[in-house]
């Protein structure tokens, strides 16, 4: 391995990591919103829509992101729906992540005793107030471990974004291997880049989870 070569390549990886992170953040935020909506729809069994949402969740959980992206990027333009690479990546990540987040929140919602919701309604709160101030705060706390695991999972899934022609970390690494045969340096930086992104998040989430467990016991 050549230190000078590594120094030369670092800026390329920083740019790529920025792109990956930006898309991951937008995608994950979208997935959280979609997940919350879907979980509430399924929890209240809103007629017709909850069946559609159920179908969506199964479809998205049982197919790989790679295939979803191929469909979005190469399939849909044929019937007139053209999206840019970045839009495809974000839509793909939201499509995948929405269902995982929805399942996490739903298990949280279902763990709350029915009596809490009934008491809220008895006290004269509106349905929306019950959802916002009673159900969601507790559901989010209960589903926190699954929720955090999903975030890490979704960041890892962004590694397939290069198939829709985005210059992410994998793309840069493959380019350097293909063009200059700098396999060792390219792969070394690739691993380091993902470690820098994922290791702190993973450690932080472990700490948060441990804290939550203590809070739950203290309760």
């Amino acid at each position: 391995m050549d230190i000078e070569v590594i120094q030369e390549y670092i800026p390329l990886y920083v740019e790529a990591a920025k792109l990956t992170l930006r898309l991951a953040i937008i995608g994950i935020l979208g997935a959280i919103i979609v997940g919350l909506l879907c979980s509430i729809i399924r929890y209240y069994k809103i007629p017709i829509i909850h069946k559609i949402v159920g179908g969506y969740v199964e479809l998205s959980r049982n197919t790989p992101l790679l295939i979803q992206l191929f469909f979005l990027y190469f399939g849909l333009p044929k019937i007139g729906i053209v999206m840019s690479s970045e839009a495809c990546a974000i839509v793909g990540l939201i499509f995948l992540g929405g269902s995982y987040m929805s399942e996490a929140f739903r298990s949280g919602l279902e763990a709350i005793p029915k009596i809490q919701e009934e008491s809220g309604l008895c006290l004269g709160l509106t349905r929306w107030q019950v959802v916002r101030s009673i159900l969601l705060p507790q559901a989010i706390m209960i589903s926190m471990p699954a929720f955090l695991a999903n975030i890490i999972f979704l960041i890892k899934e962004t590694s397939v974004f290069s198939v829709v022609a985005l210059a992410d970390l994998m793309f840069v690494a493959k380019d350097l291997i293909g063009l200059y045969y700098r396999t060792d340096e390219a792969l070394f930086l690739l691993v380091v880049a993902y470690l820098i992104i994922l290791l702190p998040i993973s450690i932080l989430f472990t700490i948060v989870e441990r804290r939550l467990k203590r809070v739950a016991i203290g309760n």
Partner: protein
Amino acid sequence: MLQSAINVLFQGRNFIRLLEGLWITVRISLLSVLLSIILGILLGFIMTKKNPVIRVITKIYLEFVRIMPQLVLLFLVYFGLSKSLHINLSGEFSAILVFTIWGTAEMGDLVRGALESIPIHQYESGRALGLTEKQLYMNVILPQTFRRLIPQSMNLVTRMIKTTSLVVLIGVVEVVKVGQQIIEASRLTAPLAAIIIYTTIFFMYFIICFPLSKFAGRLEQRWKD
């Protein structure tokens, strides 16, 4: 237009070829799962040992494999290992190697979790009743462990099948690659083939993974207590 695209799907051996391509991914995941289960059970037993050196080594292995995207691991083996060892690894072999390394880590952690979830009094009662270690494990501990383990390992299988779709990126000719070949071949005669082929591949994965994950969910519910 759309009709001619649908015709492409069933033209000649196209649909059979797609299924053959799918079989390659499924075969990679089945082989890796089989190896992962054997090695994972071993690893799980090793991880319950209290030895600090073993603990640190298994922990580092587990965390590294889990934190890296699977595609990075594939690149490391397919490009890195073959270069540093000066051997020519086929895409399929690299994939099986990577998915076995990954699956063993995941499976090992599941086995460890299942073993540790058995309350200590089960072991103690068994010993108090005068069971030998072999009898204790065969009749008391393992049957309970398997109830926890089977649904979870079925979920791992579906994850494995979904993740093996990545092998197209290290040059394995599987269902996506075959699909691309079919699309290219009919580019002029049926320009809409892409949407039909990708929808078909999408549902092929769904048809394999959906029953598995449904069944795993059902087993988990039934064996909860």
